[in-house]
């Protein structure tokens, strides 16, 4: 298992080209091309801002300006959910490669996760622009934590992506199951409502069990809320769990590896 893991690192050149290809291919043939990367989050930001400040004014005084607050959680969520949806399908749609070319299969879901991470980074540029517009500066001290959150999310997402992609080969209905679970998961995570809301605090134990709570809250703490980063403990615990999770996901993947070429 660990030698296979080392092999993934040897293939980083391939991963790099495939991620680049993924990003290029996605916008090839569209008129606005790469601009779509920016337009989508921009649109999301304006819709949510309109809905939650004009139509359903948010009660939490802490989460103002609301659109900006929500954007801090939505961006990483999109990275997470798109990665999983694409990765779960990656082995099936990349069946040609697995069947016909000697090719380490784990590269496919990993490429999906990384390509979506790049999208996340583009989204951050928009967020940055709006932080400037709203004159809502994050604390420079908190920003040290930012790469930590990103790395933890990367490990966590990759582990889940490996697990799901391997299982989808045998259970095709995971794809449909997943999109429904993700919808539920989205609302079960403090993304469109703030963590500090008294109604949320009441169910704190339940929320603590949701791994993405810690990621979303960390992003919000770092990028949005003022004051020192207060979620270090939860984040680091998730970090440890993510590594275990990744290894577990990779183990399952490795165990099922030999069945891919025949089952896809």
């Amino acid at each position, binding site marked *: 298992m660990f030698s296979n893991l080392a092999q993934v690192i040897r293939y980083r*050149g*391939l991963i790099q080209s495939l991620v680049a290809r993924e990003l290029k291919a996605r916008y090839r043939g569209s008129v606005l091309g790469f601009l779509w990367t920016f337009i989508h989050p921009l649109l999301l930001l304006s819709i949510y801002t309109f809905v939650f400040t004009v139509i359903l004014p948010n009660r939490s005084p802490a989460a103002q300006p609301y659109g900006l607050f929500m954007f801090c959680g939505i961006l990483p969520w999109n990275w997470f959910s798109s990665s999983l949806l694409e990765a779960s399908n990656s082995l099936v749609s990349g069946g040609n490669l697995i069947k*016909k070319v*000697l090719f380490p299969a784990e590269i496919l879901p990993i490429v999906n996760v990384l390509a979506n991470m790049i999208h996340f980074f583009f989204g951050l540029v928009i967020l940055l622009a709006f932080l400037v517009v709203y004159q809502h500066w994050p604390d420079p001290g908190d920003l040290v934590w930012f790469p930590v959150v990103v790395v933890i999310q990367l490990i966590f997402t990759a582990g889940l992506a490996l697990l799901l992609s391997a299982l989808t080969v045998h259970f095709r209905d995971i794809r449909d199951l997943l999109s429904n679970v993700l919808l539920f998961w989205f609302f079960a995570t403090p993304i469109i409502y703030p963590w500090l809301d008294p109604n949320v605090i009441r169910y704190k134990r339940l929320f603590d069990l949701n791994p993405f709570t810690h990621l979303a809250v960390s992003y919000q703490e770092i990028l949005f809320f003022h004051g020192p980063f207060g979620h270090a403990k939860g984040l680091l615990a998730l970090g440890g769990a993510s590594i275990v999770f990744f290894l577990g996901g990779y183990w399952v993947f490795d165990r099922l590896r030999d069945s891919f070429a025949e089952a896809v």
Partner: protein
Amino acid sequence: MTAVIELVNVTKIYRRYSGRHFATLKSALLQRSILRDLQPTEVFPALSDVSFAVPSGSTFGVIGRNGSGKSTALKLVAGITKATTGTVRVKGRISALIELGAGFHPEISGRENVFINGIMLGLSKREIEQRFDEIVDFAELRDFIDAPVKTYSSGMYMRLGFAVAIHVEPEVLLVDEVLAVGDEGFTHKCLDKFAEFRRRGRTILLVTHSLGLVERFCDEAVWLDSGRLRGEGDPRRVVDAYLAATEEREEALMAATTAKAVASSVGTGAGSRPADATVGRAATGGSTGGPAASNGAGSGSSTAAGMGAAPEAGPRSNEEEGAAPGLRNMFQADEGRWGSREIEITDVALIDRAGEPAFVFHSGDPVAIRFKIRAHAAAADFVIGIGLFNAEGVCCYGTNTHLEEMASVQLVGEAQVTFAIDSLDLVEGTYKLDVAVHKRDGYPYDYHRLLYTFRVKSRTHDAGIYRPHHRWEFSGAISFRPAEKGA
């Protein structure tokens, strides 16, 4: 010489999870049957206990029918799948021409795909840069290399895939039936490239149905049949053994088809009225039906039209002398059996050189068509005819005793008829046989229409229907060289 590829007692079992395809994860979870469901319900051995070694620097052929395990063997060598038991050892960098352009992404340009495909096949970016021009020139895609691959024709796609794979400079090249990728010119270029590989002492493992290629090109060959090794060694001998087995199989198959055709015709025939009506219509519409039939045959191929018309013209000119309407019927009816059965044909067989009934012959072999006729009452007016048709329904030859000016005198009881052909000068293909006995005016006693199938095999892939006995003669400053290995 050391072995570069070595298979030792390799067995590959494919599992079929038949029942589970409809099961959902949920039901599997609910019934706690996930573990049980992950067990295969059916196993299928694609390779059983196969061992062979490919010596370094040799070109090694793998032949066998579809589904014999050839591609599975190649995938095992390529490392794409793992052997269930046994070991597969490979030394050196492998490039597998299994499916060309397998990793191409349709939306991005040929140039980018070359890079990504090259990296997938194990090249570094720098190596690809060095070979890029060579790859593009080889694929003959200089003008299109920056267009997205989705705009390529399938030939262009394959050529690019082939060009990348061949420029990986592998020590071992695995080729799975990919030589049919381009036009004649490109195929030659591929063969040249293989020859260059050979000269440089690289090893090639070639899976193909093109037996000529194996004979010409390979140093050694193996023959797989239903996942088992049936032959190994000198390619000519292996190919011959394979061909012999194929013939046997075809014989068995044709015997079965013929038996079925005869059996079903016996059930429906027996001098019934509808059968008579068919003949009546055919006889009256003869002069118009004749050309129409030859038109129909002509649509098969342009050469067939000319040949189809030739024998057809024979009986028509004879018709003025009031002859042989029975023969003309051959051009119209479908397969089957009809007639009054006052005289009956039985035990139709094609007899080979050894005097045994057979279904597969080689072009130029002697063949005898042998059958029995039995008259239930003594008959004086009868004509015995035969007709040979190719798969497109073109009459290759037809004749009868009347046309050959043998006036019937008497048939009492049973007689054996042999139509002996000294040399079956037909090109390779499947042929059908008619035998009939009828009155001079066409009234059918027993008509066996296309009921007997046989195959003609040939080493020469010449065209047409008829192969005249021939030889080439040359004089002057002209020379040829016989086909060489590796040419």
